[in-house]
């Protein structure tokens, strides 16, 4: 016979304002099985909680219903309290009198009546609650970091320094990511590579870090603490052990006209190449699509010149399978290309470049060795127009969100330009200046006041070429939309930051959700910014949303801290809200008939087969079995099971049935 205690919370006036809590407590006393029912001002307060604890001991309660706010708010609070009083926490349920009743209905009889109903429903549920034990799963203390940009590097280093093994996977031939392409960084204007390359080297040298460059995630199975990741190591066509990185091959490659990704197509490279001088690892890779040998079967010049005979044309992709306990997603972003802008010439004007291309033009390691030369004819641009919000905050043709970094890097670009060409003229078209960050606004002011960059508040409506110049037409909205026309030598579009190509596919591979723009979604916008909705997978950097370097690094360290926290235990406990296939004594064994139609219903491949064997080892029955580690407790299998052999703890058939029957 159940002995239920009901505790009705006033939540100050939040509930009691529209619901007569006294009446609710009173009516609860009338419900069969309820032996104790009180109301109190703040149940979640210490005195409130001790009220519950005392009652549990005093009345030997077998179940507790707290009628207060949403269980999504305080269920953990009260379950802990109950546990402290020695009752199984899963024998405590909450009736949502606040969010679902007092806050949404007018004061009155009906509302109080509903509150009483909600309590009765929960009392019936509690009667059918089973004491549950949290699920314990072992933790593999090795992390997988996807993406070798600053986010991935930072996360990897922090985890490694916390004493755990890390595998850092980067899809391109070198780590470093976008940051390695930047010239200088706001708001301090320190050289990007100067601060990044030491980190890259540290990551490569770190005893706890295994580096897989030119590699991608092929497949992921398993669950938090127990993932099994398959990594595809793409063939470099090179024996990395033999290669000394002398670079002779790269100089000898006859094929020189290939657009250089690192320089954003503003320079060319050979078919065998090292992405950039400071690349880590500093080993070349053969670009099979463009290599003469792979295309025609002839050449092999690199093989001939290689002093150590490291070239391997027959090398094949290698699949590596790893057990990892946690994953950090740091796959970064991509920049919208200039060909997305018909009104700016569909990318057909050489001297209309995007922000990243300008970084290369301004970079000492870039195609112009840092000298200001425009792509079309190498002329030094006397007038440069910078267009912020190119594609960002543009519902009609671009993306609705703010790309966040453009305001700052545009100011930086204008500054860099002015520093290199003092007499030159720099204009910035902007919508608003978003420079919230330490020393950020000061930075922008400096561009405007000290480096005399002309800021024009308005959009650029059209850009076209005339007599080797770019005619930029726009409006100055601070002068009643007065039309502005500028003859520029170079135009820099601060194009929108977008999710990396293939993000959607990757998200589906990992079972993490993503927003309409394919940025990965955090588990909670405020309170779980680095977690995903898949336990054990964390986010760092611009793969979640546009981010600048400081934020990215901070978030990467945050993700690393989460991983370290996870790894601080040998096993972790999970909510026991999971599905279970019933087991019964022979000869029945289970209601399960082994049709396994539930298997395809499970989003987590958690339903396995178990063979019931006779003494002689012969198989009597093959039954479904739920892997509690994989099961996330959605209960889809429960609804598909005809024999009701599968049930889900915490939302069992009996519980839900009982709830309905009290309606």
């Amino acid at each position, binding site marked *: 016979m159940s002995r239920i205690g009901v505790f009705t919370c006033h939540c100050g006036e939040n509930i009691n304002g529209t619901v007569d809590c006294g009446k609710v407590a009173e009516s609860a006393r009338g419900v069969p099985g309820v032996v104790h029912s009180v109301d109190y001002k703040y149940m979640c307060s210490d005195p409130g909680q001790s009220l519950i604890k005392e009652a549990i001991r005093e009345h030997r309660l077998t179940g507790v219903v707290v009628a207060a706010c*949403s*269980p*999504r*708010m305080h269920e953990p609070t009260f379950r802990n309290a109950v546990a402290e009083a020695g009752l199984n926490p899963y024998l405590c349920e909450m009736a*949502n009198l*606040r*969010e*679902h*009743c007092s*806050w*949404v*209905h*007018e004061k009155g009889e*009906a*509302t109080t*009546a*509903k509150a009483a*109903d*909600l309590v009765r*429903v929960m009392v019936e549920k509690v009667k059918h609650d089973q004491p549950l034990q949290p699920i314990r799963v072992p933790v593999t203390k090795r992390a997988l970091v996807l993406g070798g940009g600053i986010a991935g590097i930072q996360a990897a280093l922090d985890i490694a320094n916390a004493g755990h093994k890390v595998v850092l996977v980067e899809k391109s031939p070198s780590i470093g990511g976008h940051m390695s392409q930047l010239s200088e960084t706001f708001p301090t204007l320190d050289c990007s590579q100067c601060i990044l390359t030491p980190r890259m080297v540290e990551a490569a040298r770190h005893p706890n870090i295994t580096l897989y460059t030119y590699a991608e995630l092929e497949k992921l199975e398993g669950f938090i603490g127990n993932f099994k990741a398959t990594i595809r190591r793409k063939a470099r066509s090179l024996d990395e052990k033999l290669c000394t990185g002398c670079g002779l091959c790269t100089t000898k490659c006859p094929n020189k006209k290939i657009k250089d990704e690192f320089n954003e197509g503003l320079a060319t490279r050979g078919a065998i190449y090292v992405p950039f001088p400071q690349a880590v690892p500093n080993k070349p890779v053969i670009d099979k699509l463009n290599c003469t040998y792979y295309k025609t079967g002839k050449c092999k010049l690199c093989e001939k010149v290689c002093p150590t005979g490291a070239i391997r044309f027959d090398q094949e992709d290698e699949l590596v399978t790893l057990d990892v306990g946690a994953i950090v997603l740091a796959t970064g972003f991509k920049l919208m290309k200039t060909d997305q802008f018909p009104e700016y010439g569909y990318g057909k004007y050489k001297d209309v470049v995007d922000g990243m291309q300008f970084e290369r033009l301004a970079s000492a390691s870039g195609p112009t060795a840092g000298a200001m030369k425009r792509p079309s004819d190498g002329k030094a641009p006397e007038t440069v127009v910078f267009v912020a919000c190119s594609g960002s905050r543009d519902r009609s043709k671009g993306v609705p969100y703010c790309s966040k970094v453009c305001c700052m890097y545009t100011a930086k670009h204008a500054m860099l330009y002015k520093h290199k060409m003092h007499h030159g003229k720099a204009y910035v078209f902007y919508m608003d200046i978003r420079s919230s960050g330490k020393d950020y606004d000061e930075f922008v002011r400096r561009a405007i006041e000290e480096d005399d960059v002309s800021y024009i508040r308005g959009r650029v409506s059209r850009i076209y070429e005339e007599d080797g110049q770019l005619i930029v037409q726009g409006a100055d909205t601070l002068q009643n939309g007065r039309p502005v026309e500028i003859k520029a030598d170079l135009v820099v579009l601060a194009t929108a930051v977008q999710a990396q190509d293939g993000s959607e596919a990757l998200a589906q591979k990992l*079972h993490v*959700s993503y927003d309409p723009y394919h940025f990965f979604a955090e588990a909670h916008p405020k309170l779980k910014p680095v977690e995903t*909705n898949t336990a054990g997978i964390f986010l760092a950097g611009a793969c979640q949303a546009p981010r600048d370097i400081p934020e990215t690094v901070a978030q990467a360290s945050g993700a690393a801290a989460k991983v370290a926290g996870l790894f601080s235990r040998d096993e972790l406990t999970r909510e026991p*809200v999971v599905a279970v296939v019933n087991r019964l004594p022979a000869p029945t064994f289970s209601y399960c008939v082994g049709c396994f139609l539930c298997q395809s*219903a499970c*989003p*987590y491949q958690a339903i396995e087969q178990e063979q019931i064997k006779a003494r002689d080892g012969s198989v009597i029955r093959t039954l479904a079995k739920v892997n509690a580690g994989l099961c*996330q*407790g*959605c*209960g*889809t299998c*429960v*609804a*598909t099971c005809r024999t009701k052999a599968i049930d*889900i703890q915490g*939302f069992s*058939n009996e519980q*839900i*049935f009982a*709830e*309905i*029957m009290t*309606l």
Partner: protein
Amino acid sequence: MTDTFEPKITAFVCNWCTYAGADLTGTSRIKYPSNVRVLRLPCTGRIDFMLLAKAFARGSDGIIISGCHPNDCHYTSGNYHARRRWMVYRNLMDFMGIDTSRITFSWVSAAEGAKWAELVNEVTEGIRAMGPYTEYQELAHAGVE
């Protein structure tokens, strides 16, 4: 008569989207009729069609089923399975003469507090106009003493 009739409405909602959405309705203090009783389940995929039959048998005049929008399921695909189930279920129930217009299916995300209020308003109004689901309730009482 019907204007004094207060329908009994049962809502089966998933914990991650619609239940959270309904919480948001509360925190935003948006008002809606008190006729609805919300039953919380982990996912729309968990909603066994028998639960609906039971709700009607217990005298619900209307039913709301709501969960995460396609693509947003916390469990990635529970709502897709649910959707298929309801596609077949609705046709079958209609074929058996059950008044499927009394069952409202909806996607309400955790961010759509206002939509939840709207939904409850519309359904309550609709059912109030339809009147009690007498034919089914009589059935439920027939032979059950």
